[in-house]
């Protein structure tokens, strides 16, 4: 019995590194967000254009971003724009990203805007 448990523990340990590590916020932003918000985070991604009734948010806009709480940003990413009274053009990413990944994205948004919620820029 003990041996079996040991073998199971060893197998689990061997399998652990094969699990993909959570990507950094920056890597996630590059993968999922650049397409609309742009490689500089200023809202000028390749998808921005006249077919969009609302242009993508400029994440380097410290004044705007400081007025949004981390919870609101998390919700916008997880549930999409309409969940926070914003555009449907921002889709819900909750089916593609884990809570941990969305939290990392929120932290990266704070790096991009160099701002915190409520703090005057």
């Amino acid at each position, binding site marked *: 019995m003990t041996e079996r448990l040991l073998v199971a523990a060893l197998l689990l340990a061997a399998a652990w590194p094969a699990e993909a590590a959570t990507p950094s916020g920056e890597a996630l932003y590059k*993968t999922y967000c650049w397409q609309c918000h742009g490689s500089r985070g200023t809202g000028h*991604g390749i998808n921005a254009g006249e077919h969009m009734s609302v242009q993508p948010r400029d994440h380097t806009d410290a004044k705007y971003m400081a007025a949004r709480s981390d919870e609101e940003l998390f919700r916008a990413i997880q549930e999409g724009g309409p969940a926070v009274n914003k555009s449907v053009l921002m889709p819900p990413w909750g089916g*593609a990203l884990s809570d941990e990944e969305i939290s990392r994205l929120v932290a990266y948004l704070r790096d991009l805007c160099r701002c915190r919620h409520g703090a005057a820029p």
Partner: protein
Amino acid sequence: MARRHLTGLLAGGALLLAVPAAAAVDGRALLEERCASCHDLTGPAPTTVEGVWSRKGPDLFYAGLKYRRDWLVRWLQRPTRIRPAGVYYGNHLRVDAEGHDRVDEASLVRHLALTREEAEAAADALMRLRAKSELVRPGAYQPGRISLSMGDLMFGKFKGCIACHRIEPGYGGLSGPEVYTAWARLNPDWVISFMRNPQAWDPRSLMPRLPLKERDLQRFVHYFKALYEDLQQRGEEEGDHD
């Protein structure tokens, strides 16, 4: 010496006789030799973002469920660009003078073209690649219609899909595949399954999973059909550029 010549002649004759059979293209070998360096023929799909960044062509290990064979045969002979910014758009960006991202056309690679015989053989081999078939229900798509104007509203205003996809040549987002050829290109039953849960097919898909009702899923495919019919009526057929 004479016997050796005779053997050589006989072997040569056998070779000549063998030529017609050998000329038939081996589709599977063709895929391995000419497609596998850019396309994953075996799976599984990448689970890391690095895997997404390094992907050069769409995964093909479920090609037999995803594509229509007749489209494959046509397209492989005259390939056009379906994803305006490549498979991972982040590898094909340049920043213009105003600081706006643009598609770096020079970085995009043209897809190779096959002869008719090669295209037929490749399509046959691709149709045999059916990983994840449990995700597709044959007959899931029920034929129906939607007006273009209603479809445009759904795809744009209501669901926001136009942010990433073009609905006609030159109009729509650039990071996703064009949808105005989707009807000709894709198996409608697969489209229903993929839209319902893109991550079940590709865990790191750049396509978000929208909460779509069964009726919405059907309507999207009706819309793709209407878009393609409209494209044909305007004589633009498939793809505006390559």
